[in-house]
């Protein structure tokens, strides 16, 4: 296309068109009355935003997601570095990890609810489990991909194994860990909401369930919008952190000579 349009302008136009389609579908009763008008949802959203309970639900959801994500990152990186550093352990765990990885955390939700009850603890434990494996596996790959020349350099200067791990292996695994975090951050939010929706954990998921059982369509849509915005913020934050931490990596370098 010969037209040059500023990305921000195009983005705003896209949102406007999406809202227009929504409004048209709502006016035409396309979904049989289950799709309220844009203005109705906006009013409802305004009402939500003024409610202290709503904000404590947002706080609970964000808190659980972050706590679970943080715990899985801490544990996942430690486990990943250990597994990746010892070849026999890497081979021994490979098949098991590959098997466990595609199992969505939701399928063990009933079990976790039975053990921990419909609590915040249950929610964050699910988040922890759901994010742990991808982080472990990416860290293992990162450790394994550490350049042998970089290792040899460190060894030739008499650096010990622990120092090589901390100063060479972990930094050079960061791009892999960053990728895992970028994927896990939105997943943490989703798992928290689902744990609330299906398992009765606190936060926006529980609010969604209430709105659903009361047939309160405008609130449902308002909550969906809130969750969408939260998702964007999570993604934005991880991207920002990745850019800061990995500014030296090929994919983020700003100045490249020769």
């Amino acid at each position: 296309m010969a037209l040059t349009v500023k990305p921000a302008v195009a983005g705003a136009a896209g949102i406007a068109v999406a809202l227009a389609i929504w409004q048209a579908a709502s006016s035409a009763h396309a979904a049989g009355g289950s799709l309220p008008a844009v203005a109705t949802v906006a009013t409802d959203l305004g009402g939500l935003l003024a409610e202290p309970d709503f904000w404590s639900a947002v706080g609970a959801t964000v808190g659980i997601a972050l706590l679970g994500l943080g715990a899985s990152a801490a544990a996942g990186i430690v486990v990943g570095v250990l597994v990746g550093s010892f070849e026999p352990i890497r081979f021994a765990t490979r098949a098991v990890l590959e098997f466990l990885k595609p199992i969505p955390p939701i399928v063990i939700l009933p079990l976790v609810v039975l053990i921990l009850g419909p609590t915040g603890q249950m929610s964050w434990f699910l988040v922890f489990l759901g994010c742990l494996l991808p982080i472990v596996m990416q860290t293992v790959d990162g450790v394994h991909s550490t350049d042998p020349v970089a290792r040899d350099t460190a060894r030739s200067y008499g650096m010990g194994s622990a120092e090589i791990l901390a100063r060479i292996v972990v930094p050079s695994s960061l791009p892999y860990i960053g990728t895992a975090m970028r994927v896990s951050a939105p997943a943490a939010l989703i798992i928290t909401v689902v744990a609330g929706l299906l398992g009765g954990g606190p936060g926006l998921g529980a609010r969604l369930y209430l709105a659903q059982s009361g047939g309160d369509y405008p609130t449902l849509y308002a909550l969906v919008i809130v969750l969408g915005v939260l998702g964007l913020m999570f993604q934005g934050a991880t991207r920002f952190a990745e850019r800061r931490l990995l500014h030296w990596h090929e994919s983020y370098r700003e100045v490249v000579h020769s």
Partner: protein
Amino acid sequence: MTSPHLATTPLEGSLGGEPQGQRPARLDVVHLAKSYGTGDGAKKVIEDLTFSVSAREIVCIVGPSGIGKTTLLKCLAGLQPTSGGRAAIDGREISGPPPEMALVFQDYSRSLMPWLTVRKNVVLPLRHLRLPKAELKARCDEALEAVGLAHAENQFPWQLSGGMQQRVAIARALAYRPEILIMDEPFASVDAQTRFDLEDLCLKIREGFGMTILVVTHDIDEAVYLADRVVVLGSKPARVLRIVDVELPSPRDQIGTRALPEFAAQRTDVLSLIKRPA
């Protein structure tokens, strides 16, 4: 500035290499052999190498590519065990990375850490020595000054040209204050002009720091220009074809030295050894 603990005790029972007059051998390689794997499947890379490097000497190892030069350096640097014979510094057998040795790799882009600035790369191998802060800084400043990169200390290696990156790698080695510097095809990945500059830097380092230097290269001109002696390797698995004494006046000069008839004669000497069918 001369390293204080440089080469003093003459070696008793030093077996290796050509007789080197009064100079004691610092690095001794005696019947060194290296194979990968064991039994019938073993791949013999180095057959039998014997040579020595004296204090403050520059020795170049040349030979066809794929001959096992890098394997040899890894054995000397204590990064992998030998399969036979011995390598020793001042008579002490090398069994791990020797503290008095530093290694400069061919592939600077992989040996420098991209997440560290130039200064932090230079300081990296010094951290475990637990030096006082002032000395750490002094060593780093001196090394960067010596390679002419004091102005680039806060840049990242990937922001620099290839030649500058290799100079960072050399500065890192210098800051470590090795007595023996080993370089693996150090100037193979830079352009011709930079190559000349780096060769002269190498000569300057020997003068300035009183270092003993071993350089592996496949460039015969470079070997003759730099070295006091050239160890010519041949055949697979590797063995020493001959050790050539380079008799060229010092200090050497890129234009003058290379124009000398003796230079041409010596390089022809080495080249004919390598070209000769084994």
